[in-house]
């Protein structure tokens, strides 16, 4: 019997998540949703992919089930499994099944990190069949019209061994994300961290310079999320240099010379 699966109401967003559109991504996403087309979000870490999905889920009034994929995540973890409870063997839906049954949005974050058998599960959901086979139960769940599958991945640091197959990639509408332009990023920082114009401008200027070091020893530039953290620390009274070192410099590299050069970049602003 199928009992006590995750409660779908736990995944409903009650407040509007802040998101500043940077292009036509909102329109593109809405069109894909209404056309029942799965969506793939590509972009560097911390540029706003997850926030965008949350915003769209709230905007479309759908529940959102987010799965942070990792190398031990199997198809069973997504679909569901039998578990022992007392003397009984009970079925427990996985997050993907929960989202499908509820007609919500399933968001598989960093899908390439998951095991390969997960793609077998998502393929039937991404074409015109829109079905979720549950092999262990011998069932097939038909996704309602409101259901949407979203995946995300970061092409910047995927290796050859960890890339999406073309047979998977070509099932999705792709929306590219990147760090916001300076004006937009300043606006985001002011809104999210509650800092003044000058501080926001300085943080964005630092980020712009540090991002120039991508391919020069940095795998990724400093993310908007880290800039928000910096702003929040400054807003809480932390001295700007210390706040920036803790959020912009140290999290993104362990290379001491790289850290020193980033500190010098920060020092040009604070």
């Amino acid at each position, binding site marked *: 019997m199928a009992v006590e699966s995750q409660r779908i109401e736990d995944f409903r967003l009650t407040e509007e998540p802040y998101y500043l559109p940077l292009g036509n991504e909102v329109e593109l996403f809405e069109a894909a949703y209404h056309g029942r087309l799965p969506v793939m979000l590509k972009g560097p870490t911390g540029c706003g992919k997850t926030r965008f999905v949350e915003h769209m889920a709230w905007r479309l009034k759908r529940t959102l089930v987010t799965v942070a994929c990792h190398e031990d995540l199997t198809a069973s973890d997504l679909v569901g499994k039998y578990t022992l409870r007392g003397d009984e063997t009970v079925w427990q839906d996985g997050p993907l099944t929960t989202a499908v049954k509820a007609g919500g949005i399933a968001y598989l974050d960093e899908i390439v990190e998951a095991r390969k058998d997960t793609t077998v599960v998502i393929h039937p959901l991404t074409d015109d069949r829109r079905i979720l086979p549950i092999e262990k139960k011998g069932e097939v769940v038909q996704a309602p019209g409101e259901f949407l599958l979203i995946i995300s991945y970061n092409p910047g640091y995927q290796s050859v061994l960890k890339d999406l197959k073309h047979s998977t990639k070509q099932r999705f509408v792709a929306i590219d994300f990147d760090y916001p332009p300076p004006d937009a990023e300043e606006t985001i920082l002011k809104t999210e961290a509650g800092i003044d114009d000058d501080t926001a401008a300085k943080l964005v200027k630092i980020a712009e*310079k*540090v991002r*120039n*070091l991508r391919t*020069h*020893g940095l795998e990724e530039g400093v993310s908007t999320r880290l800039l928000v953290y910096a702003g929040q620390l400054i807003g809480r009274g932390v001295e700007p240099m210390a706040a920036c070192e803790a959020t912009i410099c140290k999290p993104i590299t362990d290379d001491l*010379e*790289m850290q*020193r*050069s*980033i500190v*010098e*970049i920060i020092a*040009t602003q604070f």
Partner: protein
Amino acid sequence: MTFGPAVGNVGMYVAREMLAAVPEERRGAYLRMVEEISELKYQLGVEVARQLPRLLADHPPEQVARYLDQVREVAAVGWKSGVEVAKQLPDLYEAPDERLAEAYVEIVADATAGPAEDTETAELAAELGALERELKEMEPKVRRRDELKSLLAARDRRDEKRRKHAVELAAALPPILARLRPRYRPPYLHQVRQVAAVDPEASLEAADTLLDLLNGERVSAEGAAEWVSRGLEVLERNREVGRGYFRLGSKYALQVLDELKEGLALKSVARVLKLYATALSGQDVAIRGTNEMEAVDFFGPEHIVLPPEMRFFEDDDRNFTAYKVATAHGAGRIEFGTYRFQLADVPELVGTLRTRYPESSA
């Protein structure tokens, strides 16, 4: 059972029953006799101790004295014959003809001593004795000979090694000199010569290290001389440690170098400055030293040329700041294509700064 220490060593030869067989008034004499004869040879003492009780009991003292004399006579030429004579004589004394014992002793003594005229044996023995004395006297010389041999072998190995390293130095120096900046060549050769005279192996290390120190301008020519001088002191004390010094493989070598260096070396901060310039300009920027000026265009679009040492200030922090200012200046030139700059070119920025810093703009 034997007597204890009260009768001296005699107790080792005289059993209680032997002593009991000696008339009481003669026991003291018996023990003295055994003691005296046993001083010649232990085995003689044992045999005489066995025979004396019956002689002392049956014969007058003169006969006993005669017995001891005859035993001594034979033992003087061979103790084993003496033991046999000591054993047999008492029976011969019992013979009616007293001359039998005399003849017996003479025959055994002569047979034991051999021909009196055997001079060859005596000469051989004398020669052997002399040789042994000589050899004994030579023992210290033999020991010294062995010491010298091993010392010379070690020196031979050392010299062979020295010659091998000298050949390596001969091959290494010309290409190093070609890479060394011309003005440093004379002092460089002087320093390498000093080290090579002491230890060619260390001079190979010094040759490489001095090239880097001088070409990289991490020390002046005078500084290099001081660094070598300190290293030679180390080398005199311990070759291995000295070689480590000249390859900059010891803490002391680096410490001395740190004392002698003048200013901040570009090499030590080049990567930080490169990343700084790349971040500022958004372009891949290389940092070059003015010592590479012969090979690079000063105003090249992809690099910033800086002095190999920054010596404006006493401390490294401020020297680094000076490097940073020069790098930012160079990054500006790379980003905008020129060093020319006028405030009129950036009126908006000037306005912003005037607003931000009103006192300064006044």
